């Protein structure tokens, strides 16, 4: 995917609120990711400048937590649960279906920039396993057919 130019003025609000509050680095990074969809290099440099935290330390924190991304993601971020209950209820089959349908592996984005796939730890929706979240919505009791239908509907909605 092509990276767009990063408009750093979008960070003003977040940095004005949190830059001087100790212990706020993770909150700042979360807000930054909400704005850009990932953590752009330029944003990390600005955060470092405003908070006085070294970029190496910001990267250390950013890479430690699975929530943070350093590359843009697709319009739809598929987070497929790999928890024990989902595993027992065949999440592997759902993973295979997504891979076949979209032609991408865990951590990759489709060429059209629509879908990204990420395998994640337990989402806590175990009674509906297997489960995935797409952006903020949860989809449960998945079967290969249901998964294909969801992907098709999202693709059509994006056109």
């Amino acid at each position, binding site marked *: 995917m092509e990276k767009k130019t990063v408009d750093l003025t979008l960070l003003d609000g977040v940095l004005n609120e949190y830059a001087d509050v100790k212990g706020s680095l993770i909150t700042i990074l979360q807000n930054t990711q909400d704005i850009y969809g990932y953590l752009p290099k330029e944003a990390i440099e600005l955060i470092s400048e405003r908070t006085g935290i070294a970029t190496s330390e910001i990267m250390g924190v950013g890479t430690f937590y699975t929530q943070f991304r350093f590359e843009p993601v697709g319009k739809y971020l598929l987070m497929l649960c790999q928890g024990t209950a989902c595993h027992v209820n065949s999440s592997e089959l759902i993973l295979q279906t997504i891979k076949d349908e979209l032609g991408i592996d865990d951590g990759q984005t489709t060429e059209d920039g629509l879908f990204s796939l990420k395998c994640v730890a337990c989402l806590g929706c*175990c009674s509906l396993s297997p489960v995935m979240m797409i952006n903020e919505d949860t989809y449960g009791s998945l079967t290969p057919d249901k998964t294909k239908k969801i992907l098709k509907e999202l693709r059509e909605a994006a056109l």
Partner: protein
Amino acid sequence: MRIVIGQGSCGIAAGAEKVRKALLNTNINAESISITGCIGMCYLEPIVDIYDDDNKLTRLVKVSENDAESIARFIESGDKAAVEKLIVSDEDSEFLSKQTRIALRNCGIINPDEIEAYINAGGYTALKKAICELTPEGVIDIIKTSGLAGRGGAGFPTWFKWNAARQSEGEEKYLICNADEGDPGAFMDRAVIESDPHNLIEGMLIGAYAIGAKHAVVYVRAEYPLAIKRLKNAIAQAKDKGIIGENIFGSDFSCDFTIKAGAGAFVCGEETALIESLEGHRGMPRLKPPFPAQSGFWRKPSNINNVETFANVGWIINNGGEAFAAMGTENSKGTKVFAVTGKVKRSGLVEIPMGKTLRDVIFDIGGGMKTDKEFKAVQMGGPSGGCIPADLIDTVIDYKALGATGAIMGSGGMVVMDDRIGTKRMLEMLERITKGEGKEGDIELLEELCYSIKDGALCGLGQTAPNPVLTTIKYFRDEYEAHINDKKCPAGECSDLIEYRIIADKCKGCTLCARNCPVNAISGTVKKPHVINTDKCIKCGKCYTSCKFGAIVKE
């Protein structure tokens, strides 16, 4: 007349919001439609509860948006025939009636978005009693009498931690709630926050009063956006009412309240790692001692408890420590919430007094297995726990008895497994074994590795990480041996060790499998039995799942 729709995350994922919108489109008075959190019968979602003017409940289950008109007809006429097929069965009603709900007492009943609903249910009376009638030491005494122990997994006595933080020197102290519920299969903390956020706030404020903290902080995992939203809303309402802030209930006690979202790291459930994360660092566990009670958040005395622990506190203050201690066993008091999932018929949240057995939870309340396969094991305690096999199904639920099996109580996830084995969390060595590349001595080597990890790990999570491997070796050693010696998988789950075969008698020759096969390994003519070429077969299982006649077997 009130129409209440269950809207926890599970309910919404099952379609509850669509149902609510469809109901709003009928002639039902919109003001009589409201929401509640997780009712706990997750397997029957979406659920619509209809209370008549005498507060008598009609519960409708597995409702879809297409049922809205029938529901409207029922409400208009009172004729149950309109919704007959949706009414919950007597058998399913037992799922709730057999439970004893304390931590979950308001879940699925009150509206989590309205503080008035919580107050009408008796909320914040315990906080008022604690602050206005009891000394901090008096509160700690009641908790001591109750026998309440940490529900996050370790089972450490709550009063002891509170007392240590109370005794610790220092003006500035912190009361922290660990809502970084990371154990796979556990979701009771999410359900409490989504369904009854004020109960958590009340329990935490009582804890803050007891230890002498002026700051309360909740650390919630980022994967729980709805819980974060509802808790933020509840905090704002409590601030408006003066329940959070300066001079609460006109007393000298003041406490502020903040919420921080985690960023996805399992280790942050460990309390010192959680503190590092709260401070904005990588979640690396600290060396103990000093313990958080002496030096925690910002190196100030801090006390950390789990969501479910706090959810019991208000009830205990109002009903007395003795009432709580009257339930349970010698070493485990009160109730415990379990998230029962996996291959069980009725999955959802189950709160029962300690001292019941695993059989009570999985078979009596959970209804047993959902397929015709036999119960094999239940995984408890997440990655730190272990698998408890069928012949130990009558194990009593208490910290000691569960510990004796090699598993732990943990935070309350119970993933029920049928006759196969979950290899997911196991190490590379296990992968080798499952590929049929295991060799003699591997099991012993694996055990040795497990014990080294147990001895050498810095934090509690590391020390317990080998438990699933050790308990499966202990109880299912024959299956490990079959993989290594015979290169066979008795459970038919390891794709490298299995073969797919078509049973000629059952095959109708519909050609569906051949069309689904990605590598053209299946041949045969229409209406004649087909054959799989095992040399070409990549064991993807597509034929197995596509066959409508059960003609394909894996062995």
